[in-house]
């Protein structure tokens, strides 16, 4: 029982990370039709941003309020990075989807290499608040507290995004744009203005995933974004491109499946079963769980 609780908590924590990356990817794809390979770079930027801030920024540190400042700085770096990428690289290639994807591929290669050049290829110890390495007793299992941090962050982001989409005018335009972009434009609304916002939001969420993922791993490496990105893609596709709730559900399913299968079957089977799940979902229900065409 205690093992199961621990596995579920870890699976949910992992799912939370996947969701943070996938939510931005999903919105960007749904609205603009761009499969953003540079999303892993946003994540890396956020992680290194927080790492840098914790050591160099006045008021930031590795514990308590200082960590919040550092994490906020990292998230801000991710958001600015996302917005700049949209304005400089994606916007000029308006409606040329393949070229946009290619540009993000080039950017992802270049950004990871640059991070490696600046910070070195070796893992750097990440500043983490002391309490994140503690454990909480839950149903007889001692669950590390960082799992709860991940879950809480993901739930907050999910609710914030849903509120934004549901109750604001910009959210309305985004939702309508995902549904039928040409129609929104025909109504005289400039959807393009929301693109930068969506990229900034996606960048911020990915950067948060980078910060929290580094807390979870205890270190930060240039390549960690890329490895998370593949699973985030899988989550986005399973959840249905353009759907936030779909991504959330798929992230939980993927995270938990992966953990359980890795433990109960054999190491590696979990990753394998997730990939199989993707193939199955795409072949039986190409539009993903949420029901929109991919």
């Amino acid at each position, binding site marked *: 029982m205690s093992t199961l609780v621990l596995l579920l908590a870890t699976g949910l924590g992992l799912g939370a990370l996947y969701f943070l990356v996938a939510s931005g990817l999903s919105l960007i794809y749904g609205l603009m039709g761009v499969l953003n390979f540079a999303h892993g770079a946003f994540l890396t930027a956020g992680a290194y941003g927080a790492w840098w801030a914790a050591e160099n920024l006045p008021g930031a540190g590795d514990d308590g309020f200082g960590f919040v400042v550092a994490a906020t700085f990292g998230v801000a770096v991710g958001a600015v990075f996302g917005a700049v990428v949209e304005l400089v690289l994606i916007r000029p290639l308006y409606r040329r989807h393949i070229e946009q994807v290619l540009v993000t591929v080039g950017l992802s290669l270049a950004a990871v290499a640059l991070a490696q*050049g600046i910070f070195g290829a070796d893992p750097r110890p990440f500043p983490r608040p002391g309490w994140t390495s503690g454990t909480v007793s839950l149903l007889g299992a001692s669950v590390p507290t960082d799992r709860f941090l991940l879950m809480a962050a993901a739930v907050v982001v999910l609710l914030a995004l849903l509120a934004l989409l549901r109750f604001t005018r910009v959210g309305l335009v985004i939702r309508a744009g995902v549904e039928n972009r040409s129609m929104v434009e025909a109504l005289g609304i400039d959807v393009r203005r929301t693109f930068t916002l969506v990229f900034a939001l996606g960048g911020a969420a990915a950067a948060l995933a980078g910060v929290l993922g580094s807390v979870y791993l205890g270190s930060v490496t240039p390549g960690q974004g890329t490895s998370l990105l593949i699973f985030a893609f899988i989550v986005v596709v399973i959840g249905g491109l353009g759907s936030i709730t779909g991504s959330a559900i798929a992230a939980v399913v993927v995270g938990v499946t992966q953990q359980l299968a890795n433990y109960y079957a054999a190491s590696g089977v979990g990753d394998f079963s997730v*990939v199989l799940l*993707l193939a199955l979902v795409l072949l039986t229900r190409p539009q993903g769980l949420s029901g929109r065409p991919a």
Partner: protein
Amino acid sequence: MRAPERVAGVLPWVGRLAPVAVLVVLLVLPYVQLDVSWVLPDRVNGPGSMQLLALCLVFGGIALSYDVLFGRTGLLSFGHALFVAAGSYGTALGLARLDLSLWLAVLLTLAAGVVLPLVVGAVALRVSGIAFAMVTLAFAQAASILVLRNPGGLTGGEEGLPLLRDAVPDLLTGVVNAPYRYWLALAYLVGCWAVVVWLGRSRAGHAWAAIRENPERVAVLGISTYRAKLLAVVVGCFLGTLGGIAHLLVVGGASPSITSAEFTLTLLVMVVLGGAGSRWGAVLGGVLYTYLDNRLLELASSEGVQSLPAVLRVPASEPLFVLGSLFVLVVFFAPGGLAGVVHGRARSPRSLARRRKRAA
């Protein structure tokens, strides 16, 4: 996206003769003593240069095989690494674990190189667009995980699987025999080229081009797009598997890096860099990318770069940063890739109009 087929549309016979001329030059390179230590590791026929050139040619061929899917048929696959890895690991496993002879191992691998894409393609082609890319990615990722987890100590995990030297003819092993591996790589590239030329002119090739431009129209014309696309997948991936075998023999081992999704992305970068849909473009992209990837590291440790201020030195010493940025620039300013730049003038609207007038 698309670059024209012929190197010189104005003088057709130049276009026909150019590949032969290039082939002759490439064939005699191992006899050239010229010292070119500023472009290659040592003199042209030195072992270091031969090894690098062989690798470049192998990647030229693999890029060409990927272009059958991406540039010719318009299928964006993220799973090409699976088939290259199947060639490399299939042969290495056959030699090391099943004690097969080289020929038998290669034959079995080639059989797998037909069956595997047939199965994966048949499944993945049920969906199209991004979903197709994702299903192929899923298959490749599954294989990559499998290789890295090293089941039963079969694949060697992160270490990779070295080529069993005893099972390979002496001519293909050892530093001094680099020219033979170079000719092997050249033979692979020429083979790929021949297949692509031949199929490009066949009915299947025309169907591929039509599917790339307008799949709905092809379907309305009564041609089965599914079968044509499946053929493209099988041909492209089979050539990829062949490339995996060549890669194994040239590099002397199967490495898990060629199973990764990044490997497929690199192929995509090569093809777009050179010019998608163009034979010359794809091959040139593969050769140039591999060359730069290897030589830029050399350049990074050179005095010129090391004496630069840190702002310039750090990015300049990361080959992937340079290549990634170069790639972004190409996508922006030369959408047809290198082949498109070369043909820029020939393809300008005015010259097209002129050609049309002449034809009429």
